């Protein structure tokens, strides 16, 4: 790839007054804009030489039409020099560093040479010279007497916003400019500036460039009145004051008036450049709104850089709230009818499709799926309305283009911010739906990190055939099920999907004919297998495992442990007591329960296997089938969770109380032993640390024990336990905290120690080391916390909140820097990674040239599988 022009170097400098005049096409002398007839006044702020904005006119400088002519700068000759606010700090530094008489930098010749050498070295190495330059100014300032002319120096005070006071007298901009003019070029170099491109006196403006009209277009209001841009308003002020200044000076007005006008001119030019300088009241519009001047146009999020260049508004896009629809495929997105009628896809009329296209056009733009615009062969665009629809449809010819409204089956890009990885933008097929939200299958929430508490998402319609092809081949949801991050599925069952599958497949659940029909009613191409058996009444029944097997591809073989596997010392495999060992042979579940480890997002082992062996289409079909089945499964079983699901019998409560009392006693014993000096310190720990650790250990164990007591009484029938065990939501720890005991609250991994002197709260004695005094919460959430417990819990909870807040902002910034550095790298067809100039970064992508999402980890398990498959083939 060749770059037409390569930028070798960019250098920044100051513009000299001569340069301003050279680039100016007109000197502006009058503050008026338009005359009574509405024509721009020559040498006024809207001089036709500054460029054109009115349609039909041509630029007097370049002859270009509006849009072609980029605009041309004019200039205002200022009566007296004015400080450029942006350089106020630098001007101060230079003033303090140079002699007030001879204007030479107050350093010895040898020092100057040394600093120049250092600066030149840094420039050659492409590094910043700020540190050296700051040192130069700091050193120069130390001289109380000029080393060259022996003139005594005065302290120069800087008074905000823009005054330099020397010995009680305010220095005028002219004084400063005079001093700066006398600085020798050699000394300018020591200050880190290049005297050819940046003389210090250029920081005081004597000529003000007038930006072209294209940069500050005036708008004609409906009333015919012209409304000028903020910049124009500001320029009017500047010219007016400049004129008055001149008149007064020529008339020999008193010094006081001259000074006032000078200060006013300074104020207007300052606010013209930057309207947010601290200490300067912002210039306001007549309505009281602060003016948006030059630096406001560039700065910040909505400024030119971040708002107009790095990111801008796009056409053919939509944004609205999202909501779930489990009946959609993961590849689909529900689009509100109102949005579908606004967005369009361009289609080219050909002899082969002209009749279909006519049908679309005939419908007009009010009936979906209609046509919003047509573009004739000559490029003329016509809006299709109810009135002209029929007529336009008849005129339709091959070669014309119609903008057809979005309809079912169109491919669109769907995105949720922050777009942190490539799965944040995926392409979906449109399903047009009533109501006002985008609908998506909850199974695709994990890659977008979306939920339905009011999240909004964006939708973009690709407008070219190439874009559509790329969206379909590379960006479809099904192509992104396997994450390139870890090679596993990122899309899969969440929440009720997992619970539903668990309820359906756990143990020997018997399902009668009617229920089977219900569970399978949303699935297609399903053949109901032989019943698993007949009940006492002679009615056939099926098992949940049988039903789930229907969506598994034939020939799938897989064995793994469910997420609630207890990791026994010796696995009983298919004889597992908890039904936690999943074995699938030839697409049939032999044993085991389907849970998060099988079909969940981020872990789903079955999803992973199916995609790797049968491809993404079968994989997407499997997830669709799984979600449909899970929803029916959970409805069949019925599922709810409420406050009384955390109830535990009285004897359980007594047992928990016993455990906690024992723990309290143990802690007391530990403290006694510590106080008696009988505690043995752990290796590498102090006695205090040992005590803390032992107490934490004891209390932690106590909490776990209460948890297992509660778990025993809650049992697998409990909804909370089902969710925790299946991996759908929550953990056993959460249940423990709700039902049994909240446990130790901690700050930075330690017991809570902060608060008053020697104690955490005034409720305790000084030096109390006991469990209660340092944040152990005996109560459960259900029982409720006592006031001290509540306070400790708030402390621990706050730490968590602060941590997440800090983590997200820090990791976001880190991510931004990383992406900025890596965004231009590209993997080439030969596997090398190159940046835009063609320089090789890696000789083989990731050093091994492997796409993590396409790779099947070479684990012994896989070797085993291959052997099995080969043996089976030979057997057959």
């Amino acid at each position, binding site marked *: 790839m060749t770059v037409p022009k390569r930028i070798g170097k960019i250098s920044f400098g100051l513009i000299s007054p001569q340069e301003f005049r050279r680039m100016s096409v007109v000197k502006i002398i009058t503050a008026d804009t338009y005359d009574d007839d509405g024509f721009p006044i020559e040498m006024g702020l809207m001089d036709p030489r500054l460029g054109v904005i009115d349609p039909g006119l041509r630029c007097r400088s370049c002859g270009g039409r509006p849009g072609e002519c980029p605009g041309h700068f004019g200039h205002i000759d200022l009566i007296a020099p004015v400080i450029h606010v942006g350089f106020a700090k630098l001007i101060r530094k230079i003033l303090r560093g140079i002699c007030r008489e001879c204007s030479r930098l107050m350093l010895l010749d040898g020092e100057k040479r040394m600093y120049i050498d250092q600066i030149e070295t840094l420039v050659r190495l492409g590094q910043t010279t700020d540190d050296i330059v700051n040192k130069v100014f700091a050193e120069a300032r130390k001289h109380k007497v000029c080393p060259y002319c022996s003139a005594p120096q005065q302290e120069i005070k800087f008074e905000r916003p823009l005054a330099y006071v020397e010995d009680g007298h305010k220095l005028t901009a002219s004084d400063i400019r005079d001093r700066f003019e006398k600085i020798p070029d050699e000394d300018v170099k020591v200050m880190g500036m290049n005297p050819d491109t940046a003389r210090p006196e250029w920081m005081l403006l004597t000529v003000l460039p007038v930006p072209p009209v294209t940069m500050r277009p005036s708008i004609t209001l409906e009333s015919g009145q012209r409304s000028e841009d903020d910049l124009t308003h500001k320029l009017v002020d500047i010219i007016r004051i400049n004129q008055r200044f001149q008149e007064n000076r020529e008339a020999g007005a008193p010094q006081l008036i001259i000074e006032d006008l000078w200060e006013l001119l300074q104020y207007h030019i300052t606010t013209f450049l930057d309207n947010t300088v601290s200490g300067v009241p912002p210039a306001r519009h007549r309505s009281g709104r602060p003016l948006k001047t030059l630096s406001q146009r560039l700065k910040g999020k909505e400024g030119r850089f971040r708002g107009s260049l790095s990111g801008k508004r796009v056409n053919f896009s939509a944004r609205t709230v999202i909501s779930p629809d489990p009946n959609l495929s993961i590849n689909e997105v529900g689009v509100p009818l109102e949005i579908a009628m606004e967005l369009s896809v361009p289609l080219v009329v050909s002899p082969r499709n002209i009749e279909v296209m006519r049908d679309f056009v005939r419908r007009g733009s009010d009936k979906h799926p209609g046509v919003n615009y047509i573009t004739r062969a000559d490029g003329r665009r016509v809006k299709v309305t109810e009135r002209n629809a029929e007529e336009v449809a008849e005129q339709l010819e091959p070669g014309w283009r119609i903008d057809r409204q979005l309809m079912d089956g169109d491919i669109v890009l769907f995105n949720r911010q922050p777009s942190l990885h490539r799965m944040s933008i995926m392409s979906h097929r449109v399903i047009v739906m009533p109501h006002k939200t985008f609908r998506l299958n909850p199974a695709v929430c994990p890659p977008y990190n979306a939920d339905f508490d009011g999240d909004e998402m964006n939708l973009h319609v690709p407008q070219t055939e190439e874009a559509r092809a790329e969206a379909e081949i590379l960006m479809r949801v099904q192509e992104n099920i396997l994450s390139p991050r870890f090679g596993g599925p990122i899309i899969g069952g969440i929440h009720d999907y997992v619970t539903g599958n668990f309820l359906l497949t756990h143990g020997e659940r018997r399902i009668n004919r009617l229920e089977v029909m219900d569970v399978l009613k949303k699935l297609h191409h399903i053949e109901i297998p032989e019943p698993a058996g007949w009940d006492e009444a002679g009615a056939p029944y099926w098992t949940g495992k049988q039903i789930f097997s229907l969506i598994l591809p034939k020939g799938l073989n897989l064995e793994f442990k469910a997420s609630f596997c207890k990791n026994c010392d010796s696995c009983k495999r298919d004889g597992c007591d908890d039904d936690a060992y999943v074995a699938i042979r030839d697409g049939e579940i032999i044993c085991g329960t389907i849970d998060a480890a099988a079909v969940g997002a981020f872990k789903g082992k079955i999803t992973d296997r199916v995609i790797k062996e049968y491809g993404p289409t079968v994989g997407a079909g499997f997830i669709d089938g799984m979600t449909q089945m899970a929803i029916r499964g959970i409805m069949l079983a019925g599922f709810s969770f409420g406050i009384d699901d955390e109830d535990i019998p009285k004897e359980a409560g007594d047992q928990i109380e016993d455990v906690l009392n024992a723990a309290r006693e143990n802690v007391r014993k530990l403290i006694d032993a510590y106080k008696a000096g009988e505690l043995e310190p752990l290796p590498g720990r102090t006695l205090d640390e040992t005590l803390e650790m032992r107490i934490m250990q004891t209390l932690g164990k106590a909490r776990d024990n209460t948890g297992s007591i509660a778990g025993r009484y809650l049992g697998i029938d409990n909804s909370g336990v089902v969710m925790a065990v299946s991996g759908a939501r929550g953990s056993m720890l959460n249940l423990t905290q709700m039902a049994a005991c909240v446990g130790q609250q901690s700050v930075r991994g330690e017991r809570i120690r902060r608060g008053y002197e020697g104690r955490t709260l005034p409720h305790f004695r000084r030096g109390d080391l006991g469990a209660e005094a340092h944040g152990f919460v005996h109560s459960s959430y259900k029982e409720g916390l006592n006031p001290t417990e509540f306070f400790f819990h708030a402390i621990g909870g706050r730490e968590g909140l602060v941590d997440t807040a800090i983590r997200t902002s820090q990791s976001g910034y880190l991510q931004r820097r990383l992406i900025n550095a890596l965004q231009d790298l590209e993997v080439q067809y*030969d596997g*090398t990674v*190159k940046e835009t100039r063609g*320089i*090789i970064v890696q*000789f*083989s992508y990731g*050093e*091994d040239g*492997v796409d993590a999402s396409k790779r099947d980890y070479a684990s012994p398990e896989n070797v085993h599988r291959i052997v099995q498959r080969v043996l089976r083939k030979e057997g057959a």
Partner: protein
Amino acid sequence: MKKFALQDHGLVPAHILLTVEESDEVLQSYGVDSAHLPKIRVSDPVVKEIGGKVGDVVKIIRNSSTSGESVFYRLVID
């Protein structure tokens, strides 16, 4: 002080100086100019040790967590 070879250190990957023919072959196989290779300075201690000169290509064999061993080429620059 005893002199020792940098390359004998376990954490210093193997640097091999390529002959002109070898480096041409490498460049040809990747279809790039030598300017497109990553760089290494002549003043680099290992380059000094193996006697690389400006314009030479050095082959570096590193241990890699993903592929076991990975081969890099670097152009010696001033």
